[in-house]
């Protein structure tokens, strides 16, 4: 990440820490992406950050510090969610960026693409009930030693919507153990009062896992959509804290 561009206008009352960093965000648009504009709106309007659109056929990340893979149905989700998008030209650049330690976050379909690309462990299978599911769910942060969760409260259940047909996190036992041992679980599904139990696991994910990071802790993937919970007009701003975390400076 580049040395932070300091931003003048970003002293936010609700924030415990003022934004130390400003970042240039790149939102990748695949054919079939449909949450790209929602993420751009939050980053540029709510968070006042510089955002550029990165077209899937491009080979240039335009100097972005942070790459967002938005939700949607890249290539119609045909074959397997994320399977075709993973080979697009821009993804080759994103993979190199991540391997250099650059920040990448995938939401929903973006998470699926990151697992297909091997940047995150595991896979996202069809929901246990074999149906698309769109509703508010609750997730509990499992670690704050991460850029994406550093401002979150690990005792709080955050109300964030899901909208997916293939979101059941799965991996083999060895990988799961590694993820757990390395503190790579970002979020687990829980009840409205924070209880993590199988009945609150909306899609049958292994160990209630809703989001993970990689070993390098620079790549993040989550099925719930924080960008859908970041606008007071919609009556839910629980997701905003995740975007605020991204801008709260690097971890000490």
């Amino acid at each position, binding site marked *: 990440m580049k040395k932070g561009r300091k931003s003048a206008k970003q002293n936010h009352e609700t924030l415990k820490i003022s934004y130390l960093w400003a970042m240039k965000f790149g939102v990748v648009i695949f054919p*079939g992406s449909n949450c790209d504009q929602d993420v751009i709106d939050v980053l540029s309007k709510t968070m006042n950050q510089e955002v550029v659109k990165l077209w899937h056929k491009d080979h240039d990340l335009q100097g972005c510090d942070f790459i967002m893979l938005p939700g949607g149905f890249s290539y119609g989700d045909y074959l397997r969610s994320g399977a075709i998008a993973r080979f697009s030209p821009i993804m080759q650049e994103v993979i190199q960026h991540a391997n250099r330690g650059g920040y990448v976050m995938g939401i929903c379909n973006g998470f699926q693409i990151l697992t297909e690309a091997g940047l995150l462990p595991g896979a996202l299978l069809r929901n246990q009930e074999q149906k698309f*599911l769109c509703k508010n769910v609750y997730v509990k942060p499992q670690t704050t030693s991460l850029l994406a969760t550093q401002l979150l409260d690990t005792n709080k259940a955050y109300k964030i919507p899901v909208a997916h047909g293939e979101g059941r996190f799965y991996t083999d036992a060895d990988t799961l153990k590694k993820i757990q041992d390395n503190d790579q679980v970002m979020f687990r599904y829980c009840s409205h009062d924070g209880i993590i139990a199988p009945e609150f696991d909306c899609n049958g994910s292994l160990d209630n896992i809703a989001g993970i990071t990689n070993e390098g802790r620079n790549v993040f993937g989550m099925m719930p959509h924080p960008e859908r919970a970041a606008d007071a007009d919609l009556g839910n701003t629980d997701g905003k804290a995740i975007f605020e975390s991204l801008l709260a400076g690097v971890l000490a």
Partner: protein
Amino acid sequence: MEQTLTTVETAKQLGLLEEEFEKIKSILGRTPNFTELSIFSVMWSEHCSYKNSIVWLKKLPKDSPRMLAKAGEENAGLVDIGDGLACSFKIESHNHPSAIEPYQGAATGVGGINRDIFTMGARPIAQLNSLRFGDITKDKTKGLLKGVVKGIGDYGNAFGIPTVGGELFFDPSYNINPLVNAFSAGIVESGKTVSATSYGVGNPVFIVGSATGKDGIHGAAFASKDITEDSANDLPSVQVGDPFQEKLLLEATLDVIESGCVIGMQDMGAAGITCSTSEMSAKGEHGMEIWLDKVPTRQPNMKPFEILLSESQERMLIVVKKGEEATIKKICDKWDLYCEQIGVVNDSKRLTYFQNGELVADVPADDLVLGGGAPVYHREYREPAYFQETKKFKIDSVSEPKSLEEFKKIAEHLVSHPNICSRRWVSEQYDSMVGTATMTTNMPSDAAIVKIKGTNKAIAIKVDCNSRYVNADPEEGTAIAVAEAARNIVCSGGEPLAITNCLNFGNPYVPEVYWHFVGAIKGMKKACEKFETPVTGGNVSFYNQSSDEGPVFPTPTIGMLGLLEDKSNAMTLAFQKAGDLIYLVGEAQNDINSSEYLYSYQKVALSPAPHFDLEEEYKVQNTIKELIKSKAITSAHDVSDGGLYIALLEAAMPKHLGFSIKTNSDFRKDAYLFGESQSRVVVSVKAEQKAAFEEMLKSKNTGFTLLGEVTSGVCEIDGETWHQTSDMKHVYDNALGEIMAN
């Protein structure tokens, strides 16, 4: 040109009448060849020409200062919403395809309605659907419902436009013929809209999107003389939708419009290239020369009539300015879409179709279209015998329930009834939040509210029709459908602006069915005039038959658009706090007519439509508007299916609250609680605003009753505890899922 001339027998096989064949001959001044005859047959079909309905549709109100496009003139209605913006919206049926293959039928219905919106240059921002199925306990119905919901979900979710609401109704009259009506609304900057027109000699005509296959051409194919067993096997029996392609087509279309090169465009729906070329040419008073061999095809060796009539999905016909060929090709290349020039505009006012240099059809554009040469018929109509039967019903024939136990049983029956219980099993399969503009996710409301980003406004949208009421009395029932849609928009904080309609009826050649249709138009007309909500367009679907060969319930679905100038006026249906006062605005009636209670609990099939007075309704709605604007109330929920009791429960459940109310001994208790008389709204008021609220209602001369107050979780009536809200909520939330799982 093809020399094999046609006969009246072929015309009949194509669904044309003998007199229509004669008319075609006189238009052309000669006998048509097969390709030409098939062109006329599809353009003069009910679907394209509205020949059996247009006489009556013309009676509907069409004008208001906000109308930017008149009904039927464009692909969808266009309403000025201020700030230089317009809303384009429409509803359309896909009933018959959904009866054959529910998944693809419903999916392609969603695709079609969205193309109608973005072909005008508007980006869709929200969708609704209105679904009707037969007896839910039948396996066949469950299969249809599962398929339709998955089809709508898979298409709409991937397309990326939220499905924010809808309606779902079960009745055995829909056992073999479900109704699938899809609604979409989009936003466009005024002045950036595109018309379905074509003009300018020499301008190129492009086809954009999917390749053309032999989709939807059964009728014509079987009438063509040279059909063989092989070619019959080649005919797809269903059309497959591709939401991914539709998403690309949306983005490419809006990019092409933005580039400024477009003269006109129209999506390809029924009658495919034939319909788009003829309607655009007729509107622009020009002609076209079309080269069918340039059309990208999915199947080899397609005949001219097959290419012309194909209804393959996700295609657009676009006329651009001469010299801009590279512009449109570059944009389509970016989005990986086919884009081929297939013809050129001329001033002949005729459509000449060529294949490999040979002229295969030559027809005048204007004679093909509605308002031009297409036939117009007055159909006979007659009051059906059952109508007088409905009027004989008297409330006294139903004995009044007396015991608490029986009342509780009725409440439990209604709360778990598939026509009343939560639609969660359906709605959670739709992405209702993509676009981050759905305000009613966390604030449930009588209409769906979607904010218009970058402005202070929001739209409120609603689909509505209680077809049991319409069957009981087509005129009053349809007026109620309009009134209830308007009431829902008003309760959500919006101002009703305009409607679109989807008129689902049986066979129009049956006079008793046509009587339904005529009554529905009359009722719609008077209600739309009262609420100043003109009809911007829609669609007519005839030939919806029930298993006894009779018609389905007459179902004129109303899709209404409302506007919140200030989105902070959005009103929830949910009670906010224990201790708030609960009022009924509007008058109670001793009426259980056509209620779910009377129909499914008391098992009385025929009764009149519920009590309804248009003037009273108008007054109640205006009062609710004032109450919301002056912040005098904390919730508003209209009394509809299931009556007052269900309205109270629905208001209590979202925040896990309850209610304690008193009934009025001037009315039968079952009528008071479960009757569905119209023009009533349940509102909640903070205790400290009691005086101001009552003063306001008195000044408005609107009837009201203090029912009681919001409790922290118990449902109490006349001092007796009926239920805990949490228990009823559990039943309400899970009833449909449990039926579907069994």
